């Protein structure tokens, strides 16, 4: 077979441990989703279809060798940027301009950027001498800030954060000097007040509510309070699958999407949460391991950035559900119900698989 096909298109060299971790996660996700949706098999089926589509995307991307990806990178980034600008004018969606309607498919260009930004930063950094010097850092920062700002204006703070952070991780892994890093961090903190003015009213309200949820227990504080009650009432071992009163009686808002971790926490308790964390830790660790073994700078930076960004999803979502962080629309990866993020995430893992599979074929 190998003889008749182009060299890079041989049968998938999937990383079995990573795949196992992902499948385990998806299995748990479907289980929790069944309960969170009120035992609605339709919802679970639709999610399963999405996961299948995502896995297919992963499979396809795992066959594309990193050097091909590297060639596509600037074009993908440019396309993503163009689409983002397009949403500015023709976006559809409830009160926000996130969606672009392409006839059959509606999708969020910001999802492309979740992959395109770390790719672009890695692409920009890979020929340069590392650790990057100040100018390189500034240009790389520019690359990640432009799409992040565009997405934040949509407004989609969660995705903007993820996009920005993924670019930053590439920089960090490239050996960004600590001094520069602290300088950037200082700059970011200094810009916080400016961010406050740039925020929409509902976003400000979320932050205020996060600071004091009990100030409006029936309004904006409801989500945080009910989520914390769900988590806390779960205890050590939870109320049992399908027996979470907070979720079954619809006290948890967005319980099958952004707040699905609250359902899991309520029904499976601390034990379930720790098992989930362990799976996430394993997947992140495995991703970093793959990155470390990659042979090209581009592949390393990209793989490392994708792995760490994946973890940021978990961190932000779990922090939000437990009331540690303000409510931002970041799903629990591969568990929350919802289309585009699943496909993007699995596509990202496809890239990781490819980097893993092609580690010996790199020039």
């Amino acid at each position, binding site marked *: 077979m190998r003889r008749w096909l182009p060299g890079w298109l041989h049968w998938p060299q999937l990383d079995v441990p990573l795949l196992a971790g992902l499948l385990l996660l998806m299995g748990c996700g479907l289980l929790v989703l069944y309960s969170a949706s009120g035992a609605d098999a339709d919802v679970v089926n639709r999610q399963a279809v999405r996961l299948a589509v995502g896995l297919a995307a992963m499979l396809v991307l795992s066959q594309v060798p990193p050097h091909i990806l590297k060639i596509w990178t600037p074009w993908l980034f440019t396309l993503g940027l163009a689409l983002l600008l397009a949403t500015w004018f023709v976006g559809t969606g409830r009160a926000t301009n996130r969606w672009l309607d392409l006839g059959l498919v509606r999708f969020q260009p910001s999802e492309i950027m979740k992959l395109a930004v770390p790719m672009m930063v890695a692409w920009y950094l890979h*020929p340069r001498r590392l650790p990057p*010097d100040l100018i390189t850092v500034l240009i790389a920062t520019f690359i990640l800030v432009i799409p992040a700002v565009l997405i934040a204006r949509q407004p989609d703070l969660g995705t903007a954060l993820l996009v920005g952070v993924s670019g930053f991780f590439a920089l960090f892994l490239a050996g960004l000097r600590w001094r520069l890093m602290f300088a950037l961090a200082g700059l970011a903190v200094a810009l916080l007040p400016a961010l406050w003015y740039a925020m929409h009213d509902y976003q400000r309200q979320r932050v205020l509510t996060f600071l004091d949820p009990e100030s409006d227990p029936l309004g904006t504080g409801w989500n945080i309070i009910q989520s914390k009650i769900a988590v806390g009432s779960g205890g050590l071992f939870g109320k049992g699958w399908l027996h979470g009163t907070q979720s079954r009686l619809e006290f948890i808002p967005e319980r099958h999407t952004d707040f699905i971790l609250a359902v899991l926490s309520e029904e499976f308790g601390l034990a379930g949460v720790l098992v989930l964390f362990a799976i996430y830790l394993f997947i992140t660790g495995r991703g970093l391991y793959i990155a470390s073994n990659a042979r090209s700078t581009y592949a390393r930076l990209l793989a490392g950035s994708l792995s760490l960004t994946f973890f940021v999803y978990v961190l932000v979502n779990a922090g939000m559900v437990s009331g*540690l962080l303000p409510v931002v629309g970041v799903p629990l990866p591969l568990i929350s119900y919802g289309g585009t993020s699943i496909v993007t995430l699995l596509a990202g893992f496809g890239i990781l698989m490819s980097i893993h599979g092609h580690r010996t074929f790199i020039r």
Partner: protein
Amino acid sequence: MNIRQRIRHSQSSPIKDQALESRRFTERAAVAFALVAVALMLLAARYVYLQVLSHEEFATRSTNNRVRVVPVPPNRGLIYDRRGRPIAENRPAYRLEVVPEKAGELGPLLERLGAIIALPEDVQERFERNRPRYRVFDSVPLKFNLSEAEVARFAVDRHRFDGVDVVPYLARHYPQGELLTHVLGYVGRLDVDDLGRVDEGNYRGTTHIGKTGIERYYESALHGSSGLEKVETNSQGRTLQVLERSSPVHGDDLVLSIDLEVQRAAWDALGERAGAVVAIDPNDGAVLAMVSKPAYDPNLFVHGISTADYRAILSARGRPLFNRTLLGGYEPGSTLKPFVGLAGLELGVISDGDEVFSGGEFYLPNVSRPYRDWKRGGHGSVNIYEALEQSVNTFFYQLALDLGIDRMHDYLAMFGFGAPTGIDLLGENAGVLPSRAWKRGQFGQPWYPGETVIAGIGQGFNVTTPVQLANALVVLANGGTRFEPRLLYAVKHPGNTRADRIESPVAQQVPVADPAHWDTIREGMRRVVHGRKGTARAIRPDDGTEIAGKSGTAQVVAQDRDEDMDEDTAEHLRHHALFIAYAPFERPSIVVATVVEHGGGGSAEAAPVTRAVLDAWLYQERLP
């Protein structure tokens, strides 16, 4: 290196040390993984804090979230007349309720609701006033007793009104309408102002409370005790299942001593005239009828009376809201004479055969003003029998003078004059039984003999209520026992099959010096109806039933006999007609006091009404 050198350096050195970069990357990846691990540990710590350390608090809040304690209001006790006919009942009805937390802004909501359901004008004001009564996610009633059309219209548009619901309940209804208003009173919507007099916890689910009459006096018995339901609700507050239930204890059913037939007889006999009738069973102090006219329909008040209806009642002739039986203060006039006469006999001031000459006018020494008899030229020499039969003023002028006001006061007080009777209704008027001390206290003035003279015929300062008058006659009829009259005859506790009889408490046992004295007064009263010259001989029954009675006239304005009342006298200046009676004479079973306002003479106007009431009762009594 300065910045320019750096730029040149980075651009001009494409040759990279791959091994070094890889090693550096691995270092950074290790740092990143360590940070990931630390972050996860912090997260895990947060979950430990929530799920282990604060578990109990959140478990409680989770339970409180889903479990609501819903009060289950008891059914209000029913009320029957003494023969078991319902006079206050509960009917299934629908009310409109809103859960403010779910409904959003009230103003626009009410506007939209108003388009399909006619809401009371004060709905928003009432809502705001009563809001503190209700807890978060409690539903607040907006309108009671929806019509079928309104229920249907709402059902169609229901999806437009989040948090608004039509709820079935039991509504109070008074099938006899205005006939019993002044006895039963009515229930009205429970207001925050009402909560002061009840246990708030017991009234959480209750929407109506007794506002006046029996409904108010026996509120606690009629209301019962609220039950509780622990229900599981979802976040929208919809009840999913009942987890626990403690049943309410329904209110007691009350049986009143009122006899509907007697009540109606009195009502009909009064006709269009304003007045009052009180009938009491002298054997036990049970009230048989209690009519005050005009009255109003109590059902109007149950669901919240409209401003227009209320204004109509307020401005109606004869003040329908005024309960004349309890609050109406009338001069007793000649109806006081039997009691004054009994005082004279019992206190030894006069004896059976003593005669007084009536010449038409009575003078006090050194006073030129005459005190007149009603009959020009007087009645001649009369004894106590004749004095009662013909209502001879001079006899009682003299007797009053001989008794003196204070002795008269003390004796009549034993019959309940000048004090509330203690009937089971609120707000009773005490009336006035004058004495020297009373006048000094009231006006700071000394007592004049002339005031004693007219007090002997029930004029001057004397004020009695119809219920007082009837209750005083009870004492005379039964030979000395004064009861606190009772409307409540029996109570049926929920679950019991039989009602428990409620006895009227005895207020006073009037000492009897000689039973013959009492018989003398009774005989005098019998002659009022049956005597040849009796003032009320027109109402003498043909069937041999014997009635003892006494007429009276309460002056509205002081008038001289010379300008006797005639057709031309403006109605509102005409005297009130009074009549008291009991029957049957030998074994009395009913006492009646009647007032016909502006009726003129007692015998002509009030006696026939009294007769109709007596007939209704005596006829009832003969029924098996």
